[in-house]
């Protein structure tokens, strides 16, 4: 009698425990976090094996370079390469992999090949904030402006200027971002000479102390202006077009008609009913475009000599600075994954349905 009671108790406890595990696993936040972590692991692994298994193994290339340039004996060159790449070359690949992951978890990304003695991490810390600042600002401005213009176009479909604005948006969205950057630079900076392009180079003027001073803030906006303007121009077209078609679709929905019938104010309908729902598909689009814009920053920052992470990466690519390249690529991916994570949560906040339903992932 009593033993039977105990066994049903443990069974029910087991069930509730299982339920808890299931509930945690199906939780929106947990699922998103797990995916982000998995992505970061996937990319680090991919890069590790790519760099080591490629036909032109950069570590071997570097060792040969040391031998040829400084006529070092093979053993010494090998040791130096190992310390720069922060790996033990004598260990089997599996052990190297584990070591590499452990080092990464400790935040050790190795040292730069071309400027010995400088850790990759330190280089990243000095260059990354500028890219986050300029790309973030550019995307924010273009998203907000694009959503507003797109809604306006959907509401004023009969207006004479509607096809003109739509046409410009369609042209802007099809031209590669670096082409827009080059055109801006050549015409605004060189041909017409409206913009002091040489003074705008770099991420800030030399000699200006960082801090919450008006001079500093003005200066960083001055230097970021051209990259930000390019990001805005190259992404705004697609926001306008998507928001326009999405808003037109939403305007035909029953709940909008019902809201009108209930006599809600037009302002409330526009923001809470039409705007909020029409923006949903755009947030998914924002996810994909973050990665795209950050990737494009390699080219844009090069054009305007803006010293962000993309500029540094392209320099590392041309000088074949592998540890730096590897580290920057990793950091770029991690920041894209993190911003996707944030955007996912924003999406969940906008659209409560995804938080409840299991979804496909």
């Amino acid at each position, binding site marked *: 009698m009593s033993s039977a009671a105990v066994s049903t108790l443990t069974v029910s406890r087991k069930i509730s425990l299982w339920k808890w595990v299931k509930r945690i696993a199906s939780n929106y936040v947990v699922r998103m976090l797990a*995916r982000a972590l*998995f*992505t970061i692991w*996937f*990319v680090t692994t991919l*890069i590790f094996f*790519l*760099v080591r298994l*490629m*036909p*032109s193994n*950069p570590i071997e290339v570097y060792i040969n370079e040391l031998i040829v340039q400084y006529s070092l004996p093979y053993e010494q060159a090998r040791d130096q390469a190992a310390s720069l790449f922060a790996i033990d070359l004598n260990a089997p690949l599996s052990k190297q992999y584990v070591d590499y992951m452990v080092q990464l978890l400790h935040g050790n990304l190795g040292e730069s090949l071309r400027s010995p003695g400088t850790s990759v991490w330190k280089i990243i810390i000095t260059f990354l904030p500028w890219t986050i600042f300029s790309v973030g600002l550019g995307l924010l401005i273009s998203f907000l402006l694009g959503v507003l213009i797109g809604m306006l176009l959907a509401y004023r479909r009969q207006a004479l200027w509607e096809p003109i604005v739509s046409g410009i948006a*369609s*042209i802007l*969205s*099809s*031209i*590669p971002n*670096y*082409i827009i950057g*080059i*055109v801006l*630079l*050549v015409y605004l*900076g*060189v*041909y017409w000479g409206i913009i002091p392009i040489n003074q705008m180079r770099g991420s800030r003027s030399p000699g200006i102390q960082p801090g919450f001073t008006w001079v500093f803030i003005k200066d960083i906006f001055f230097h970021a202006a051209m990259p930000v303007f390019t990001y805005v121009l190259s992404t705004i077209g697609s926001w306008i077009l998507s928001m326009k078609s999405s808003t037109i679709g939403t305007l035909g929905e029953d709940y909008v008609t019902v809201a009108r019938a209930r006599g809600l104010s037009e302002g409330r309908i526009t923001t809470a009913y039409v705007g909020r729902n029409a923006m949903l598909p755009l947030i998914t689009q924002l*996810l*994909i475009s973050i*990665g*795209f814009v*950050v*990737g*494009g920053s*390699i*080219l844009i920052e*090069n054009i305007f000599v803006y010293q962000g992470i993309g500029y540094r*990466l*392209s320099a590392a*690519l*041309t000088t*074949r600075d*592998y540890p730096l*390249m*590897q580290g*920057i*690529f990793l950091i*770029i*991916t991690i920041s*894209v*994954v993190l911003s*996707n994570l944030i955007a996912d949560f924003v999406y969940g906040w906008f659209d409560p349905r995804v938080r409840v339903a299991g979804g*496909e*992932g």
Partner: protein
Amino acid sequence: MTPQALMPKTGIRYWPGRVLRGIGRFLKLMSRNKTGFVGFLIFIGFVLMTTVGTLFVPEVTSADINAIYAPPTWEHPLGNDSQGKDILSQIVHGGRDILEMALLTGLISTFIGVALGSLSALVGGGFDAFLAMLADIWLTIPQFPLLAVLATLIKLDNTLLLALLLSVLSWAGLYRSIRAQVYSLKERDYIEAATALDLGMWHIIFSEVLPNMLSYIAISFTFGMTSAIYAQVGLVFLGLVPLTRNWGVMINLAWTQGAIFFKDSVYFIMAPVTAIALFQLSIVWMSRSLEEIFNPRLRTG
């Protein structure tokens, strides 16, 4: 004479007419969407320029010191570059590389997307879930930096290799849209009817599913082309791909030779920039007409 004997004769006599009529019908459908038709015409213009045009415009190989940054004349409608070479000739000869690579990448990436997407949706189960998850993850990896890093590890000196690499890297986006499309098609009544009538797997795939996916396939083809051009020119601009004689190389040259500091060289840099922008635009616009042709429901008026 028996009707059987007549048949091939009429067939032979009329085939040019039939082809012409086919082209006429295609053009009529294309011209339904004005933007799409303009894009299509520009695209054809580019194709003609890079194929037939090269026969009429001689390739300039020698430098001319007297004509450095010479402004446009009748003889050189786009002016001359930093070595005094005719810019128009470089534009005409520099498109082939890009066109070939874009078409190849479009073909390969569409094939990968269609094959994986339909396979995944038709097989379903764990295979499908795994691929879908992998695609989700793949989409968050910034493509261009990955490509740039790869370009330092692999020598991308031939068009096919670059096209293959670009297609493999961009599989996830196409895969997702094709998979979603096949999933929704699977549920349609006419597919169920065809299954119930036991019309056979091949019949269902080729006569029921594929025709309804053509607009998606056309779109993914043009998308593959535009992203290939973006990536190739970007890599060339960074100096990571050793390709000779194309628009990207022209931009790179104009750039590295300080063209951005001299007003005179505006033609040198703007000519390839305009060519690339116009080419991209023509493909994007053309895709609208293609979408309408393959998806009659979109046709208006």
